[in-house]
């Protein structure tokens, strides 16, 4: 197997592992609904995941108490389920950011030394 093939397989796995972190980062900026979140993630990260796979993740975040949901029905347009980050979600996100920063620095050091 060539390196391009291996990278092709590795990149989606690497990005998918970061999705929960990315979702919480996005939710920190304000409440958002599923479709909008999928579009934003694609736009900001170029992560090509099937949009539907966000929903099991969002459900898990909700079950863990990191987000809450609320249906909003506008006068015009479709009803939308908005996700909002909770205090526990913000607390978890802060810890995630620390882990990310430390990991990022360590890996960057290794990359620079290599």
């Amino acid at each position: 197997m060539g390196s391009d093939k291996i990278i092709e397989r590795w990149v989606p796995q690497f990005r998918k592992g970061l999705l929960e972190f990315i979702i919480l980062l996005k939710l920190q900026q304000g409440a958002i609904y599923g479709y909008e979140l999928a579009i934003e993630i694609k736009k900001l990260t170029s992560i090509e995941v099937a949009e539907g796979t966000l929903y099991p993740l969002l459900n898990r975040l909700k079950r863990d108490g990191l987000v809450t949901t609320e249906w909003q029905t506008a006068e015009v347009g479709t009803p939308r389920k908005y996700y909002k980050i909770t205090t526990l979600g913000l607390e978890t996100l802060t810890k995630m950011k620390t882990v990310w920063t430390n990991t990022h620095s360590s890996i960057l050091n290794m990359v620079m030394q290599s």
Partner: protein
Amino acid sequence: MNETFPIKTGVAQKVWQNFDRELIYKLRPLPKAEQQDIRLEILSHLYDSALNDNADSEEIRLINAIARLGDPDDYLQPLVAEILLMQKAIKGHPLAITKSLFINAQKGLINALLTLLLGIGYFWIVMIFLMAVMHFGDADIGLWFYDSGDFALSFEAQPGAVQWQPKWFSVIGLAVSISGYYLLNTLLSKLLLKSKT
């Protein structure tokens, strides 16, 4: 649903209805409220996605939107499985309880300790239940007290000990085990809701 999500052309309506039927079919193991919630959210996503697609015809926009969502099995199965597992555990389904205990034990030291305590609790509940049932056939099975203040749950008569409530042991044992089972299930469901993955 058509008033909520106005689809104009006949072909697009067919595409929409087929997708909706598939959603209904795949979500049927869930309670009605959960089914409705997930179905409406996916349909809302689909409608928004189709609305923002650049294709000329409505049906192609819908088909593209369905493709972007991915294989329904990939996103519906994990959702259904997770919700069902939690609900079965709450309702006291023994297999779901075992699986939930196992999953929960893997979520860190505190969760593992709490799960161990719950597991011990379930063990004693089952023991008391079995002894209460077996007491109907063997009167020596029960709770025995010694003069020293010690006691033993035993399957046979204990020399030098007095049996506690021999006439009522079965009834009390059944009542304690059943109420204990529901109490532990409630604690487990709360633990599942609070625990982090």
